[in-house]
């Protein structure tokens, strides 16, 4: 008996290939960063305005909530950057074969998470 084919796109049942996951995270991180631009500019402005505001910003970023936000921004930036470089490769015809595309997809996923982890450790030490 062949398995019944899905008749609709059930997001819980669909199994994305790894390239699909990297792609959706690329979109989600890009959208989040795009919407966060005014907030990032505001925090950047404060950090440059006066020593007191700089201390307030670093104080916020060392708290648990601010630190999580910072890690989120760093992860989104790294994932979007690395997945974007992978896409630039596709644009010039590099890495489009299935094997290499899967390999680079895993690479992007783990490199972004790993570098975010290293960044977090660097901040804590």
């Amino acid at each position: 008996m062949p398995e019944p084919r899905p008749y609709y796109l059930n997001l819980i049942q669909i199994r994305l290939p790894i390239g699909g996951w990297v792609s959706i995270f690329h979109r989600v991180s890009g959208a989040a960063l795009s919407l966060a631009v005014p907030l990032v500019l505001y925090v950047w402005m404060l950090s440059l305005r006066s020593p007191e505001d700089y201390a307030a910003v670093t104080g916020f970023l060392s708290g648990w909530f601010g630190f999580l936000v910072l890690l989120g921004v760093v992860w989104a930036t790294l994932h979007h950057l690395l997945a974007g470089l992978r896409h630039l490769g596709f644009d010039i015809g590099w890495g489009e074969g299935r094997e290499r595309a899967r390999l680079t997809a895993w690479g992007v996923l783990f490199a972004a998470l790993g570098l975010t982890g290293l960044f977090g450790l660097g901040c804590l030490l």
Partner: protein
Amino acid sequence: MRTVGGARRGLTIWLVQRAGAVVMAAYLPLFALYAWLAGSADYAGWRGLFEPLAAKVTTLLFFAALLSHAWIGMREIVIDYVHCPRCLGLRLALHFSFAVLYLACLVWTADILWTLA
């Protein structure tokens, strides 16, 4: 009657987004290296990173690349998800709103950089 939908400008926009991507991919590691070599993490050191004219100009160019890249990316998302029988007006309104927001952000960036000493 002219139509404003469709994909006439797709290739140009695609190319602008790639150009912005390359600018950012060059700026981010270079700036991280520059900041790391400068080495001081206090307020004066942080502010000092952005005071040289070359840093201001390249940082403003980075934000111009980022904002155009974000504007094109939000356009893709709006085109993909905002669908209804008469949604072209809504898509155009969103696209225009992001243009206004990001142009304002670019001017704001210039102000942040050039009000430093």
